[in-house]
């Protein structure tokens, strides 16, 4: 993941496991690194099995940062854990990405 000039760059960053207070610092570095101006970045959330407020904050930060530098950040393949956290926090619409998998119980 270089931060070199990124014309029409498309990156997919798969995140897995726990996106929480315990791994927040590490994830923050990773998320900020992957963003680049004019690039399209997709965060694949299919393997996230835990997401807490710290994780949510990070995603919000990444989204805002992406908007600031002109990078298209998309969240995709929301796992059930992600969907539940988005529902609970009311943040789903903030990201605005289509959520394909509906939770079993709403």
């Amino acid at each position, binding site marked *: 993941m270089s931060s070199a000039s990124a014309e029409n760059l498309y990156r997919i960053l798969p995140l897995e496991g726990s996106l929480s207070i315990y791994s927040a610092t590490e994830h923050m570095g990773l998320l900020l690194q992957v963003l680049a101006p004019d690039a399209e970045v997709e965060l694949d959330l299919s393997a996230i099995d835990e997401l807490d*407020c710290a994780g949510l904050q990070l995603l919000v930060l990444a989204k805002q940062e992406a908007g600031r530098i002109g990078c298209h950040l998309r969240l995709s393949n929301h796992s059930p854990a992600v969907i539940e956290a988005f529902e609970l926090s009311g943040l789903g619409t903030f990201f*605005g990405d289509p959520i394909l998998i509906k939770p079993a119980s709403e």
Partner: protein
Amino acid sequence: MDMDEVLKTFIAESQELLLQMEDALLQLEHTPGDADTINAIFRAAHTIKGSAGLFGLDLIVAFTHIAESVLDRVRSNELQFNAELTALFLQVGDHLARLIALVDAGADLNTLEVEVQATHETLSEQLSYYLAPATAAKPVASQPTRIERGNASGLSADHWHLSLRFGPDTLRNGMDPLGLFRYLNTFGRIVSIVPLLDRLPSAAEMDPETCYLGFEIAFASDADKATIDGTFEFVREDSLIRILPPHSKSDEYLELIRTLPEEDMRLGEILMRCGTLTAAELQEVLLAQVEGQQRDEAQPIGQVLMEQSLVQAPVIAAALQKQQQIKDNRSNENSLIRVDANKLDKLIDLVGELIIAGAGARMTAKNCGHSEMLEATELLSRLVEEVRDSALPLRMVQIGATFNRFQRVVRDVSKEIGKDISLSISGGETELDKSVVERMGDPLTHLVRNAMDHGIESLQTRQANGKPAQGNVCLNACHDGGNIIIEVTDDGGGLDPQRILAKARERGLVSDSQTLTEQEIFNLIFEPGFSTADQVSNLSGRGVGMDVVKRNISALRGTIELSSTLGQGTRVRIRLPLTLAIIDGFLVNVGQAGYVIPLEQVEECIELHSDSAITRGHLELHGQMLPVVRLRELFDDDSTPPRRESVVVVQQGGLRAGLVVDQLVGEFQTVIKPLGKVFAACRVLGGFTILGDGSVALILDIPRLLTQLAAPRSAVPFETKQSYAHE
């Protein structure tokens, strides 16, 4: 007023506004960032939202609200219109048009078809994406979500309101707000939640382990305050927790707004999003205040909001829009009235009858020779003429609006077929009958698509031929006498007559021995089942096009012709009558029958001294040979011709001919009545009219007559090839 009628007006207006919005969006592609254009788009969305609110169309209100919010950000230069956003807004416009069509059809917007619902959600989400980055928690996006899920209960204030600002160490202390929410859900239901992200710093200052979040929650529960309070026991120390029981007094909400750290104005909005205060309550309060009316209970909040709104006032704007809407409507009403097209048709019909009656009166007066009577009828017919002249333009509309629809067509099609094509429009201010304009839509679409798909070459071919990379399709309209001419021109490869001929032979449309002029070959394009495209594409090339176009044009009493230069481009020219109802005619007699020739096509009238002046169907006039037709022969009238005959010289589109008639009667206003199907085969008749004395006169279709005359010589019935050969 009848609600249904008001709703109809709303639908018609919204459709117009959506068209304006689309025009503006397409214009933006050429003049990005033009403030007026952006304002036009904003106004359109704004007005639709306002009117939809009046009808309780919450779905449309919510949807346009997001769109409007995005537009507002564009207006304040936080966002720029780019291709992506324009495309999104075009889709938004389409979707709104669809929703409004559903309203028109009487459908219930709360139960949308799956497909529409999916589009709705996708677009809402895509729109809210544009709201997200800058002012983080601008929580408008939560509104459609709530409505989509149909949580009507969330709109009433019979729930708790929780305002939570978590302390920075909440996460580090092992507390997760999400866990608290889960706990809340065990003895109640979170009706709606709005996250507040204002405190979230930029990446550089961010400590990933610090909690920056706040939430406003509407919580429905039967539990007592102690239970709810207890939920937050472990975070209370460094967090700000405010809990308001259901049905609190407005003063308490006011107090809440004042004690929370965020700007009061936004909190009012958030309370509304949460459903703690309904939009209607908030608006009512604001409206009441604007109107100087008294509304005791909620007034304080309104005042606070008003005070705070001096700088930026989206909510006040939303509240005031209904009022503004009413005002706008009023000022519109001053200059424009909406009239049912049927009423107009009725009026035009009556004017037509009046003209016939007037002509009758005038003729009678003439026959009586009563000079005062004659004077009176002269005055009368002049006034009737004026009435006609002012009644006809009522139905006239500019063709520009129809032309502008094609900006979208060209844009979409050029993306679809991967060619860079621009559309230029001229003569958009040309006016013609509304019913004609409406029926031109389909044929024009076909011609434009054809021009784009077949006409314009691929980029490689264009470059190889030294043409500009961008292809151009041009729509032009202008007046020509009593006709309007519409042209569709492209600067593409043009038509290859040889290829068309080969294809026509292959299809058996032309026999191998036949030789055709270039114009005749081009006319083959209009034959049913003919297509020149080597490849059938999605758009055209299946040979079900040009013949339909021609039929449509013919049904409007119009003609269509095509000219093309190989390698240079193709021009399709459509000639249409200005109106379908009334023409100025020139009445002539042959035997007992009256014939009307449209006055615009009459060039001059001359006396025919003797039969011998006509040689081989031609008459020498001003040193030129003029083809002449005897109407007596054309219509098989076997009455005896009078000693003196006259020739009416008619011209149309460069073709001229003389019509030999018995008697010239004079100018005459004529209401065209269509002929029955029995006469469909008789192509030189355009209709009939009833004369003042009640007799019937046939209206000649001069363009058709001239075309027939100009057709292959062998078909002219008055002269044979042999007699040519003798000379």
